[in-house]
């Protein structure tokens, strides 16, 4: 079948790229992974598949490109509907999952990135505080949504697990930069335990980057960001 051709265009340090990969693993869908180098100029394939944002991940299903990680995850869930469900079946729970995933991407992730890209100690401290605040909030969300089960999605990894879990290795890198633990026994015990479960899950463990390798990349990325800022417009 022409449509059994599934490719993911990605980049190993990108947390967003992990999302469709984990989703495809959960659905037991085979795919070809194509690596894009984020620190160099963008490939023809990427520019052709995602002309609007020019970013990874891109899912290529047959000849159709689908962009934006969470949109891709929903697409995967809807197309391969015979596999385990990624989004909950109840509309209100689905809405909640979407709401918190949007919070993670629009509010929490910028703070995480803010620690990496901070130009001053003050800016760094402020960003760290925001990351911590977000995690405390998400600890509460976990309590409400998991209802005593191992994942945000219940017994199985779901949409919100994927949304947050994709940032876990970056979180370790940020902990290293901050010289402090951000997921702690004291404030985020459930999330700390969930993080171990998620990272060691069979659909996840083979695609998570190594923390040391990512930390090295983080240094290069920070330099790139600061250099771009220094260029007068």
């Amino acid at each position, binding site marked *: 079948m022409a449509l059994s051709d599934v490719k993911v265009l990605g980049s190993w340090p990108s947390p967003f790229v992990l999302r469709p990969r984990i989703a495809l693993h959960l659905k037991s869908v085979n795919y070809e992974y194509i690596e894009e180098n984020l620190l160099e100029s963008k490939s023809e394939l990427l520019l052709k598949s995602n002309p*609007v944002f020019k970013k990874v991940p891109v899912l290529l*299903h047959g000849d*159709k490109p*689908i*962009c*934006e990680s969470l*949109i*891709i995850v*929903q*697409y995967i869930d*809807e*197309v391969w509907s015979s596999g385990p469900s990624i989004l909950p079946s109840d*509309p*209100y729970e*689905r*809405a909640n999952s*979407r*709401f918190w995933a*949007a*919070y993670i991407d629009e509010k929490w992730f910028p703070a995480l990135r803010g620690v990496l890209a901070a130009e001053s100690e003050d800016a760094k401290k402020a960003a760290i505080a925001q990351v911590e605040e977000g995690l405390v*909030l998400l600890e509460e969300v976990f309590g409400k949504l998991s209802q005593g089960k191992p994942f945000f999605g219940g017994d199985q990894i779901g949409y919100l697990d994927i949304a947050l879990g994709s940032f876990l290795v970056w979180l370790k890198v940020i902990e290293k930069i901050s010289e402090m633990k951000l997921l702690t026994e004291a404030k985020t015990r459930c999330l700390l335990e969930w993080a171990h479960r998620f990272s060691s899950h069979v659909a996840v463990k083979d695609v998570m980057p190594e923390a040391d390798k990512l930390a090295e990349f983080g240094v290069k990325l920070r330099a790139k960001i600061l250099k771009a800022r220094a260029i007068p417009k």
Partner: protein
Amino acid sequence: MAEEVKLFGMWASPFSRRVELALKLKGIPYEYIEEDLSNKSPSLLKYNPIHKKVPLLVHKEKPLAESLVILEYLDETWKNNPILPQDPYERAMARFWAKFIDEKLLPTAAKVSHSTGKEQEQGVEEVHQQLKILENELKGKEFFAGQSIGYLDIVAHVLFWFYSAGEASGVNALTTEKFPIIYEWIEKLIKIDAVNECRIPKEKHQDFIRLRRESLKSASK
């Protein structure tokens, strides 16, 4: 029952109007509560403590925030007059363009509305580029959603904001000459009753924008 669904909104918020439009198109009865954003009600703060924003939908006492999340919820809960396409790829495309509108186009439009001089000029150029990209999606179709109004039209109807804000921002970024296809689409939209009922009143809106520009100017002195 109307009391089952409550919408906390604000007359000038395009996001709030978006949800109203979806409710009307799907024929869902609701109670509308106008919020004074400079003096938010205790109910709003209780139901939406994270963002403290409108629109906020409350269905059988359960709160829902973020307009795009609300639109999908409405479509999944009330199956009549579906607004999202059935096909997963079409759905992904609709969601993608909604994201483009909310994360690229609208912030640029806000920049145009709140700035002057060179900054505003730059903003207008960016907006033009983005509008051109979006306009492309309308080519050969009656509406963004195809033959009839759907999710992406509801999301994109915030373009009305430009249309009515117009000269009040000091510059009209959305002109018929530059964007004839978008204008044709707007003409079709305003023939639909539900859309007309959700229109932000033009003069009131222009006054609102002028006032906000003035307060921003005096704040920066």
